């Protein structure tokens, strides 16, 4: 693996499995298990023609990072997204470092509730809350 940029000191590259996540990645992480923090460097592929990150890329990042946390929360059992609520607070630009530490709101036998505040340099720029279903649990 090539050396990480200086702003990613302490991070390592996340092992992405899904083809779409590999297509929009790389993603970086630090810490272990569900307490991991994730980071994305916004590059030319992620922005719209005004140089601002595409809402879809933010929602994809939410699905990737909250999905990873959901997977950690259910001991790596299969789970799927049921619902994702997102709010776009501030524009994010090419070169920005986006960071999030997903928060487990509640876990039941069949459902997982997760949320995340996405930051750039300490500013909250995007928030997401989500509901996940564990497959095979009624």
């Amino acid at each position: 693996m090539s050396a990480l940029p200086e702003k990613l000191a302490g991070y390592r590259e996340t092992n992405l499995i899904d083809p779409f996540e590999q297509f929009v990645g790389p993603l970086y992480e630090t810490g272990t298990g569900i307490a991991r923090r994730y980071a994305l460097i916004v590059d030319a592929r992620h922005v719209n023609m005004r140089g601002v990150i595409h809402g879809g890329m933010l929602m994809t990042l939410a699905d990737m990072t909250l999905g990873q946390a959901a997977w950690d929360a259910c001991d790596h059992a299969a789970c799927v997204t049921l619902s994702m609520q997102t709010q776009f607070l501030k524009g994010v630009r090419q070169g920005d470092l986006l960071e999030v530490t997903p928060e487990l709101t509640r876990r039941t036998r069949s459902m997982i509730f997760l949320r995340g505040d996405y930051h750039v340099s300490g500013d909250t720029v995007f928030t997401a809350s989500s509901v996940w279903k564990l497959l095979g649990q009624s």
Partner: protein
Amino acid sequence: MDRPAGIPADAEIASTGGFNKYVGPLYRLSDLEDGMVKRFAFAAAEHHMNGAGTVHGGMLMTFMDTSMSRTSRLISGAKGTATVSLTCDFVSPAKLGDIIESRVRATRQTRTIVFLSAELVCGNRVLMVGTGVWKISGGE
């Protein structure tokens, strides 16, 4: 340019640059209900998938956001709009090769805000429903 099977030959390309072009191509289809319903489509390809063999939720939400953002500009006539809030419910999965279509309608438009609702379908099957709020740029 050739269109994938299931996309009309005269469908206009809606992904002309940036992230839309990177994940696309995305197409605009003809309106329904005298222009009240705006429609877009894409063909699910290998790079849109997740490890479980269905279309990744991020791609479905990206297509939802693009379809609704484009509609917010079409109906308001504004040059720029920005997504403020978007909720997506994952109703059923899509698979490789599916032609995924969005149908977007406006709930209300004010001077500065557009309220939209939409669904993604594959044939008669609903894949995702979405509701959201768009801000018209240059407003207050």
